[in-house]
Structures are given as structure tokens and as C-alpha cells.
């Protein structure tokens, strides 16, 4: 790969090692690559946040105010990608969905959604339970339960992606379930707020 500006070999780096000019975003790079992180579920505490800040310090368009229009445009593209990577990877659930996407399965797409009737019934029951409960304490109990289930699924997904434990089908199902549970948790939050 050659630098657009000086023509020297640049080895897929974000900045040309010869002339230091910013390079185009590499389409093959994953969002983990964009932040310089390993493609794993488990990330040290605040690793995503600090990686995001460090990379931003090198590519943010504000730093290219006096550069050429090509460089400004490249900085904007790089920053859009870095911002998207940050948004996707900082939340553990969306991070898991992205890891699954790297394996070729898009969670939430029409054809991948679960059609298991027993599961869908269970989710509807839970939703009704939330709607019907008006008591503060009962809602908080429900919140604790749902949160525990949510966290359990994430732990299972971490074992699947990082330690190859379990099947991909189960992992896809877990991701589907997390989408329902997240909406449920948001609704619980709103209801508790209303009662407050």
C-alpha cells in the first residue's frame, strides 16, 4: 500500500511513516482495529474509553484546520469511523453483536430474528408483568431479576467469544434475548421514574 501523498510504502498504517500525512480509512479494518483494540469481549475497565480518546487526539478534524482539503476530508472520515467504533464497542451488548457480525451473522436483521414461540410468549409475559405492576418495590424486584438475567447472558457470550464455549446458535439466541431484555429494562426505568 502506498501513501497518497508521497508515494512511499505505508503498511496499512493510519499515518504515512515517511511523510506523516493522514491516510484513508482501510475498509478491511474492523472497529476494534480502528481503536487499536483486540477483537475480544473482555476489555479492561475503561480500555475502550481511553483508546477512543487517544486515537481522537490524532485524527480529529479540529487538528487539521490548517491542512489541505484532502487531509481534512480524510480526518473527517477517520473520525466518523472512530466515533462509530466507540459507540459500538463501549457497550458490552453492542460489542457482542459486532463480534457476531464479524462472524457473518447480523443480529436484528429480518431473517436472523428468533421465531421460537415459547421464547416470544415468555417475553410478552414479562412485558405484561411490567405494565401491570404499579408498586415501587415490586418493580424494583422485577428490575433486579431482569438485570441478573441480562448480565448472565453477557457472561455466557464472553465465554463463547473469548473461550469458544457453547454453540453459535445459542450465542445468536442470547443476543436476540438481550435486545428484548434491554427494552424491558428501559421500560422499567421509565416506570420507576414516573412513580418517583
Amino acid at each position, binding site marked *: 500500500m502506498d501513501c497518497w501523498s508521497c508515494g512511499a510504502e505505508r503498511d496499512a498504517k493510519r499515518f504515512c511513516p515517511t511523510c506523516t500525512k493522514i491516510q484513508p480509512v482501510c475498509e478491511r479494518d474492523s472497529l476494534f482495529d480502528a481503536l487499536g483494540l483486540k477483537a475480544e469481549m473482555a476489555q479492561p475497565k475503561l480500555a475502550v474509553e481511553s483508546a477512543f*480518546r487517544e486515537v*481522537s*487526539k490524532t485524527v*480529529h*478534524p*479540529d*487538528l*487539521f*484546520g*490548517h491542512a489541505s482539503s484532502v487531509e481534512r476530508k480524510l480526518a*473527517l472520515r477517520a*473520525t*466518523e469511523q472512530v*466515533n*462509530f467504533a*466507540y*459507540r459500538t464497542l463501549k457497550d458490552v451488548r453492542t460489542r457482542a453483536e459486532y463480534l457476531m457480525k464479524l462472524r457473518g451473522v447480523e443480529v436484528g436483521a429480518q431473517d436472523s430474528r428468533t421465531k421460537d414461540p415459547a421464547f416470544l410468549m415468555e417475553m410478552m409475559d414479562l412485558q405484561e408483568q411490567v405494565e401491570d405492576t404499579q408498586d415501587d418495590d415490586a418493580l424494583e424486584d422485577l428490575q433486579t431479576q431482569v438485570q441478573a438475567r441480562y448480565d448472565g447472558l453477557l457472561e455466557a457470550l464472553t465465554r463463547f467469544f473469548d473461550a469458544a464455549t457453547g454453540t453459535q446458535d445459542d450465542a445468536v439466541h442470547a443476543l436476540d434475548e438481550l435486545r428484548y431484555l434491554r427494552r424491558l429494562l428501559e421500560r422499567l*426505568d421509565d416506570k420507576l*421514574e414516573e412513580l418517583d
Partner: protein
Amino acid sequence: MGLLQIGGGPKEKCAGRVAGIDLGTTYSLVAQVQDGAPQVIRDAEGRATLPSVVRYSPDGEVSVGYAARAGAEAHSGATIGSAKRFMGRSQAEAQAADELTPYLFAKGSDEQVVYFQVCEGKQVTPMEVSAEVLRVLKARAEEALGGALDGVVITVPAYFDDAQRQATKDAARIAGLTVLRLLNEPTSAALAYGLDKSEDGLFAVFDMGGGTFDISILKLDGGVFQVLTTGGDSRLGGDDFDRAVAEHFLKEQGKVPEECPPEVAVRALAEARRAKEALTEAESTSLQIEGQDYLLSRAQFAELIAPTLKRARGPVRRVLKDIGIDPSELDGVVLVGGSTRVPAVKDFVAKLFKQEPRGDIDPDQVVALGAAVQADLLGGNGPRGDVLLLDVLPLSLGIETMGGVVEKLLHRNQTIPAKARQEFTTYADGQTGMDFHVVQGERELVADCRSLARFKLSGIPPMGAGMGRVEVTLSVDADGILDVSAEETTTGVVASVQVKPSYGLDDETVEKMLLDSFKYAETDVEQRAMAEAKVEAKRIINALEAAMKDDQGMLEPAERQTLDKAKASLQEAMAGARHQLITERTTKLDELSAEFAVRRMNRNISEALEGITADKIDGVNA
């Protein structure tokens, strides 16, 4: 120029002339970075603030600021304050709030834009009113900086939506300003505050001005100012306190506030504002509403504004929930905006955040100071590398799908600049066009969000249903402003897109407003020449004074007298209105002092040979 050249080469950096502008609801300010520190630029009377008030006289004269406000009560309909509240709003929205109002609205030619009837046959939009304020600040900055501005950073409430941001940019264009960046007010305040204190941690900025309320939480970490979450209400501020007080006393007189004529409203609101400001220091104050005297205590005032203030609670709770922290985990709460001077507001913040808020930087100036710093980073001295602002989108952006439901593509609190794509498929055989509706807001239903733009993608080649695929891209730049594009992807045919913004002055209208203000163009040129002449004159005088102070002994009394006389006549010219005369007398003074300069230079050379460094000499003259 003789005196300036003594002892050293040119040390001017080639930086652009830039400034930061806080375009507020009630007050506006302009600031610049000087010697590395931001400073507010004051007017000739030494005042930092400019009331955001514009008066249109029937004879066509326009006055801005204190002069306009002073006459407000005598000429109500023609005096416009708080135009910011109407930026980017439609007529329906402006009139929906059934309240005491000092304005006369007009129908105008576009329902999406508010028009004020200012005199017979003359209507102005909020953007034109704001442009008048900007023009005054522009002139003030250009005089201080000694030349035309290359660009400005203008601050906006973080909670401003796309239409309000667009409107602000339009106002700047009408005023002939180049906008380097629209910067969110709380972020700007944090920048000024953080740089001043050089303290890392998690900070909340509680920003309540005349008309808008913002709450942001930022992480300050080694020069990176990262906004984690932001919320607010773009129609909540000190104006509402004034209104609560005015309405209370009008009701006591048996009047219906929303039916009061504008002149009554103007008087009552002005009186309420005076009382509010007095109660910052005093325990009680008197006020006169429609000929009757009342006494208002601080406690009673707090009670009157409590329902308004309570509206800030929701947004505060939401931002805390967004990042999942308890207020006690914050390293500080910073107060910004004039309304935070109200003791009841301070108490409210302390209770809500479970800690005493900080207000050690002037809450009126801190936003403008931050804007000056950002302007300097973007267009002045260039990036410093050690300071970076990472801001977020305040409200989600999405596209209407089947059944009036919003599909969110970009989410609130997402770091900007950001871009998202979404694919839509054709639903009918042979379909050649597709309609899109872009909205902004958090609600699920389109009807509850704000409509930003509608557009039609046409020219799709006829195919079976579901075969045509259209990719829509929404991107938000660092100003928080949206750009939309669409493309048919299956066949690779790029079809045309027409985006019709729901709000917006189209380019033609802005051009026309610019033309309307052409009469200003000439005064602008005059003002600029005046500013440049004055700066040059000041430079020569300062250098001469410094030199005379240091080397009194080098001048014969007669020489000294000649120089003093030339200086006095230049100063006299500077007080006048003719820039040609200033330039003439500057040249004269410069010529007269040339001999003195040569003498000093010769002396300096001999001193330098004896080991006195050029730096010291440079320091004396600079």
C-alpha cells in the same frame, strides 16, 4: 515605524483574526485570545455585555444594545429582544405558547419562519434581528483586532436542534461572518473553566441563561474535553422568571396576561426583570406594575419561579441516568449563565446535585471566553495538540418508516462528527420514486418528533417490488448540523435527491437579506478603515511613550515639545470620525520621531556590544 524596529526583528505570528461570540437570549459578548489568554472585548464605555435587543425606528434607523433597550418601553412594537427564542421556529410554534408577549407578529411569506412587525410595512425575521446584534459585535472585534475578522466561533445551546443551528448560521451569514464552528455553550464554558483550573475529573455544567437551559456532563482528562451526555430545554430561562412575576401581579389586578397589549407586557416584564436582579443582593424589593406599587420578597419570588425551575429537574435526572452515576460522584458542578445568579437557582442546583456548585468564573463571560479559545485553536494559532473538544449530538436523528414510526440512525449522545447509513427497499413493482422524511427527537412516533426535511428520490429504474434498494446516509458535522444523501444501489444509478428543509431560509432568501443590508456594507468599510487606522495610531503612540520614558535624556526640550504636540493632535484625530486624518497624523508623528529612533538605535548597538541582550530591548518596546 522607526521606533518599533529598534532592537529586534519582527515577532508577529501569522495568525488569523478570529473571535468567539456568545449570542445570548438577553446578552451577547465577543471575546478574543490575547497573549494566550481569552479576554472579553469591551465597548467604548467599557461594558463587556451587549443586550441582545434591537430597535427599529419608523425612520428606518436601527439601534442595538443598551440604546435599544433604554427606549424599549416607549416604543414597544419596534423593539425586539430575545429573538433567540424564535430562531428556527415556525409561526405555529411561536404562537402556541399562550403567554404574555411583548411582540407583534406578522404573517410574512413563509409559515416556517417567524416575522416580527417592527414598523409600518416593515417585518423582520429572528435571524435578521440576531444579525444586527452580530454586526455590532463584529465591528467591536474588528476594531480591537485591527482588521477584518477571518472567522468566528458562535456558541449555541447544546440542546438546540438542527433547525435552530441552521438559523444561527443564517444569522451569521446575513451579518457577513464566516462561522468556523457552532460550539455548544456548556462545552465552551467547560473549556474556559477547565483550562483555567487545569483540573481533571467528571464535571456537570448547569447553564441557565435568559431563554435556554442546558445540562452537560463532561470528562476532563489531560486536555481532552469529552462531553458524555447533554440535555436541556431550549425554552427555559430567566425570561420565564420575569414572565412568572409579571403575570402574577397582572393577575392580581384582574388582568388576563395573554390578552395584555404588547406595551403593557414590555413595561411589566422590564419591571419584573429589575426586581429579579435586585433580589440577587437584596432580601426584598419594590416594583411598580401598571401604576400600582408592590413589595416582593426573595422568598415570594422563589415561590413564583418554583414551577418554572422545576422543569429543569427532568433533564438533570436524565443525564445522570445516561451515564449511570450518582451526583455525589461528580468532581464539580459549574454554574453558567446569568440566571444562575438567582439565589433560588443556586439552592436548587445544590439540592439536586447534593453539592455546592462552583461559580468562580463570571457566569456571564465564561461561554464567550471558551468560544475565543476554540476560535484560536481552529483558525488563529492553529491546533495546540494538547486541547481537544469531543462533543455529542443532543437529539437523535431518524427516518420515518411504515406506520409513522421513527427508525433512529444517529442517537443522542453519540460523538460527532458521525455518519450512518440505512438501506430501504422498494415496496411496489415498477416503483420509480421513494419519499423520505427525516426527523429529530427521542420519541418513537414521527408525530412526536421535529420534522427536519422531506425529500423524494426519483429516477429509480423500474424493477420488481423489493428489488430496488436505496441507501440513505445521514451525517452530522462538528457543528451538529445534518446532511442527507440517498442513492439507488442495485443498479448503481445515482438518482437525484432534493432535500427540502422544513425550516430554513433557502439560499435565495439569505442572499436577499444580505442585499437588504447592503447599506451597511459601506459603513462596514468605513468602520474597518477606522479600526485599522486607530490600531496603527495606538501602536505608534505606545512605542513612542515607552521610548520617551526610557530615554528621556536623549531628547532636547524643544524636540520633546514637538513630539508631544504631534502626539496630542493625533489623539485628537482619534477621537473624531475621520480615519484619513488619523492616518495622516500617524504618518506625521512617525516621521517626527524618526531622528529619535535613529539615536536610540545607535545607542542600542553600542550597548549590545557591551553585552546587553537584544531580548531586553525587545521587551521594552513590545
